[in-house]
């Protein structure tokens, strides 16, 4: 039943009052904290009292008038107040101590009290901190939990970065406040009250003065603060909008560049920052005015005490001792009063911020948390038909996207939907997938409502592939398996962790109301993928990736990865074997023209000058950069001995000239810069003055920095690629000489930094492909890369390494939003995921629209064969495909034709062909 309560709690809107929210969540802890604080007051009071006793008694000698006098130490007695009779109980009579031991005893108890006090403080602060952090965690979790349950349509209105900034930054100050929420006012109030009662006891009049000043403070200051709080709220709002706007600029950077709107953006930004500045400036002005007023009032009271108190003292109604006592007591008053005011301000401030945030997260139409309940049980396949009656969908402006749709769709049917963009076909698919809520009409499956299906049914028995191809950043493997991660299915496996989890991990999660579903379990539902366990994942993935024609891409990705021989020693060893087999094959075959392998005695025309010179790669993780090589003294020495430095200097001037001529007027993010292999856009800016000095002063006079800048340019030069005719046979011969010199008895720092090309070693600094080739692919040969990859793939297949290489490709990090893959590749991956899911109905909504028509046709046909179970591969499934290439509709069993937000006809393709003009015009 506890589970039910949790769902109910999650479904309720968030508590809009922070104080109530805090009290509800942390009642027990707050009371305990209060109790501890009251207890802690005892040693606190004692420690205030003790110094007086130490000074008066053992030091000044009060009570030690005779040499043998003793004092009682540590007597514990309680006495009842007078009105209860004043009877006393003695718990412990104490020890009789002489003056010297008495001093030691009192000092030691002082030390002990210091420790006790400190420990109390330590305990209270840690307790408060933990309380706050737990609440912060709970709040963040609740907020994101709600984001996960927002209606999809709501996301049109919210910006990702704004939500992120609320969850991340804006709730942060709550954590600090929560610990103080209830304890602080009680504690400070108590302190103030004591001082106050004391003053009143001494003099009624002075007490009244203190009261009235404090009353003024308590009224005026919060009143002044109102505007400050309002400004604080504005500051928060504008800052949030700013972060949203910056997010938008980054996301839409291409449209800024293609439209030359950067200055508009600048001015917009300046305008925003200006607003924020004035809000903040006014805030500071008011804040410091309040501070000034506060201080003034605090100082005004003693003034009145002197005047009024002095008057009474002169008249003799108040004695001087009392006056001093009052002034003294008043000194202690402002601190707790100010503390109270501050606490109240903070409370109001945080309350406003809290209400602001909560408002954003109390969205109507959030899905019931029960619908998202995690279930580890197998969800029974869906069968039967989906009945759609009178379906209507409108967007948030009220314009109709689909109307009067009435049809039945067998879950296992093979159906296509066609129609122009905006005809309603896609909306129908989204309604079935639960991505839009119908504004009217009903969606039922076997008599019960489709919208009431828990997500565990909808999200597992349906698969969906839309045209939007955003993929969160993870490895390709995780991205493919993502769709089958519904619930933790195994005991957690912590072996991937470097440090063990904190022993209180689960307890704390519980205390903060977070989910207890274990992240470290295996979440992948292998059963749904039609396989029995993790061992069979690879063949299954290869199968679907082959179907979406991504297998070669994955192998290609693997080819560009780097492997560390220390992590995968066996594979690297095998790859060296592949290398030697490949070398045998290259000799005398067509491949010989496509690859130039490393040879100590010859210049590799398809490699850079640096690679030819150094004839090796970096030994450590840091790459050998052109600048690094030039700056190396040993290399410089060899270059000058062979006279190469003069040649390279001339080449550098030539290259800098060319680069400036071609690229100087391009913006740094122009795609043409990818072709500039010897310079970065940033470096380019530094070259014009260097070039000027170089031409003026020549090689011998030029400064070392300038000279190095020019010498590093030809390091990445490849004659075959750059075609500037800077490298002739004699230069090549000299580079070979230099190479020989470099490797002939080199100093230790050179051998440490460089690993020479060695046909028997796997190099961690080179890609898998370069390692297998042990050379470079020829530049300027038609399809060289493809042919070489094909040869390598064949060889890997022969040597039984195909799977291992494939799984390395799957480890490829697809980048933020999956941007390291092309859009077409992302759409293929999303289609492949849908197939992996083992669903009963696969809805594809213009899922391959960035592919060319022929590829779309091929893929649709392949998926159709799977859906029909033609090849005996896997379970047949239903398919609903909103086609972007309508002519393929003939391949489906039934076709829906949409036009102008309505379902026009719905029949078998042959029947439509005969009597439906719209269908004929779309399909032909």
């Amino acid at each position, binding site marked *: 039943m506890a589970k039910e309560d949790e769902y109910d709690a999650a479904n309720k809107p968030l508590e809009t009052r922070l104080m109530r929210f805090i009290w509800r969540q942390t009642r027990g802890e707050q009371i305990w904290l209060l109790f501890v604080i009251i207890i802690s007051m005892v040693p606190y009071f004692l420690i205030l009292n003790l110094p007086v006793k130490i000074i008066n008694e053992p030091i000044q000698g009060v009570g030690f008038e005779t040499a043998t006098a003793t004092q009682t130490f540590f007597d514990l007695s309680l006495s009842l107040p007078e009105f209860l009779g004043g009877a006393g109980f003695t718990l412990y009579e104490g020890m009789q101590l002489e003056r010297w031991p008495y001093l030691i005893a009192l000092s030691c108890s002082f030390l002990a009290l210091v420790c006790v006090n400190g420990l109390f403080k330590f305990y209270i602060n840690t307790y408060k901190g933990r309380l706050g952090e737990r609440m912060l965690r709970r709040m963040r979790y609740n907020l994101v939990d709600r984001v996960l349950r927002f209606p999809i349509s709501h996301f049109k209105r919210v910006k990702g970065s704004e939500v992120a900034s609320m969850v991340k930054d804006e709730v942060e100050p709550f954590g600090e406040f929560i610990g103080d929420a209830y304890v602080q006012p009680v504690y400070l109030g108590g302190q103030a009250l004591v001082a106050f009662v004391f003053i009143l006891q001494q003099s009624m009049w002075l007490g009244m003065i203190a009261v009235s000043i404090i009353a003024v403070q308590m009224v005026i200051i919060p009143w002044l603060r109102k505007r400050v709080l309002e400004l604080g709220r504005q500051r928060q709002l504008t800052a949030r909008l700013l972060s949203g706007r910056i997010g938008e600029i980054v996301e839409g950077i291409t449209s800024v560049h293609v439209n030359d709107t950067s200055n508009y953006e600048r001015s917009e930004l300046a305008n925003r920052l200006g607003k924020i500045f004035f809000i903040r400036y006014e805030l500071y002005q008011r804040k410091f005015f309040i501070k000034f007023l506060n201080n003034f009032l605090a100082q005004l009271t003693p003034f009145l005490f002197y005047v009024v108190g002095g008057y009474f003292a002169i008249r003799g109604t108040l004695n001087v001792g009392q006056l001093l006592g009052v002034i003294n007591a008043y000194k202690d008053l402002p601190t707790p009063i100010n503390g109270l005011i501050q606490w109240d301000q903070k409370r109001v401030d945080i309350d406003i911020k809290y209400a602001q945030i909560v408002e954003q997260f109390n969205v109507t139409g959030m899905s019931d948390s029960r619908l998202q309940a995690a279930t580890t049980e197998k969800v029974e396949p869906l069968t039967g038909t989906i009945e759609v009656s009178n379906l209507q969908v409108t967007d948030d402006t009220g314009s109709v996207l689909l109307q009067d749709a009435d049809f039945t769709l067998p879950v296992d049917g093979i159906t296509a939907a066609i129609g122009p963009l905006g005809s309603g076909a896609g909306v129908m698919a989204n309604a079935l997938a639960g991505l839009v809520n119908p504004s009217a009409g009903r969606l039922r499956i076997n008599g019960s409502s489709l919208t009431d299906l828990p997500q565990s049914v909808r999200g597992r028995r349906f698969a969906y592939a839309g045209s939007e191809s955003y993929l969160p950043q993870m490895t390709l493997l995780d991205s493919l398996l993502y769709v089958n991660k519904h619930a933790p299915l195994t005991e957690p496996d912590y072996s991937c962790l470097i440090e063990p989890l904190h022993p209180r991990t689960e307890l704390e999660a519980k205390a903060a109301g977070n989910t207890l579903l274990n992240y470290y379990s295996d979440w992948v539902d292998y059963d749904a993928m039609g396989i029995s366990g993790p061992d069979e994942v690879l063949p299954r993935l290869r199968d679907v990736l082959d179907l979406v024609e991504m297998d070669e891409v994955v192998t290609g990705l693997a080819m560009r990865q780097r492997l560390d021989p220390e992590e995968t020693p066996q594979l690297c060893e095998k790859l060296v074997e592949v290398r030697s087999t490949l070398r045998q094959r290259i000799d005398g075959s067509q491949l010989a023209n496509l690859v130039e392998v490393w040879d100590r005695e010859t210049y590799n025309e398809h490699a850079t000058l640096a690679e030819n010179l150094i004839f090796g790669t970096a030994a450590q993780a840091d790459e050998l950069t052109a600048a690094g090589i030039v700056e190396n003294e040993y290399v410089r020495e060899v270059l000058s001995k062979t006279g190469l430095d003069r040649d390279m200097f001339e080449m550098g001037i030539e290259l800098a000239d060319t680069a400036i001529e071609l690229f100087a007027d391009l913006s740094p993010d122009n*795609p043409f810069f990818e072709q500039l292999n010897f310079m970065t856009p940033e470096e380019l800016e530094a070259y014009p003055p260097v070039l000027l000095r170089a031409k003026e002063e020549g090689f011998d006079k030029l400064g070392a920095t300038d000279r190095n800048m020019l010498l590093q340019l030809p390091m990445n030069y490849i004659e075959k690629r750059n075609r500037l005719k800077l490298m002739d046979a004699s230069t090549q011969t000299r580079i070979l000489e230099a190479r020989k010199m470099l490797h002939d008895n080199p100093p230790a720092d050179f051998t440490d930094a460089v690993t020479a090309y060695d046909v028997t070693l796997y190099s961690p600094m080179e890609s898998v492909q370069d390692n297998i080739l042990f050379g470079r692919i020829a530049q300027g040969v038609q399809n060289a890369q493809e042919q070489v990859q094909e040869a390598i793939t064949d060889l890997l297949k022969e040597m039984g390494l195909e799977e291992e290489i494939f799984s390395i490709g799957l480890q490829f990090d697809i980048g933020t939003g999956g941007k390291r893959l092309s859009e077409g590749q992302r759409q293929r991956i999303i289609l492949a995921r849908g197939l992996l899911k083992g669903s009963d109905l696969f809805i594809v909504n213009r899922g391959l629209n960035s592919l060319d028509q022929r590829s779309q046709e091929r893929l649709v046909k392949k998926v159709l064969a799977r859906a029909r179970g033609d090849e005996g591969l896997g379970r047949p499934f239903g398919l609903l495909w909103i086609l972007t290439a309508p002519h393929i509709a003939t391949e489906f069993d039934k076709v829906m034709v949409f036009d102008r937000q309505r379902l026009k006809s719905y029949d078998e393709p042959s029947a439509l062909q005969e009597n439906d003009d719209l269908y004929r015009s779309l399909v032909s």
Partner: protein
Amino acid sequence: MSKLTEEVDLLRSIPMFAGMPANKLKLLAFASDHITVADGDMLFNQGDDADAAYIVIEGAADVLVASEAGAEPSRVAQLGRNSVIGDMAILADIPRTASVRAEGELEILKISRDHMMDMVKDSPTLALAVLKELVERLARTTHDLSEAKSELAGLKKAS
């Protein structure tokens, strides 16, 4: 003379590029690949996605068209030095309408679709030149078509 300069000269001799500033032409050449195609190798096949245009530097290329899918393609033209191949396909993102095969060793300059598009976006001169080239081709095709039509009509009358 470096190969790059030769290529720039080659580009300048092509009407479409003739009006472009020298450094832009050089940039285009710099960013393009100088490729050698062996005798008999296909440059691309009919129906492939178009990702690049080519300019023949040296050698000859056969243009092959299959009238129906699966039919044996027949040679419809031979292109020599300075010919531009496949430029229209990259502008409109349509599949290749013909196959091209190297006849003897062929040296070409391969201009990728992205670079070409960037150039067109950047340079109104180039955009206009491309437009002009298109219109001229259209006029030629229309002319050919009307001639063919009248020939066909004449043939029909005769029979």
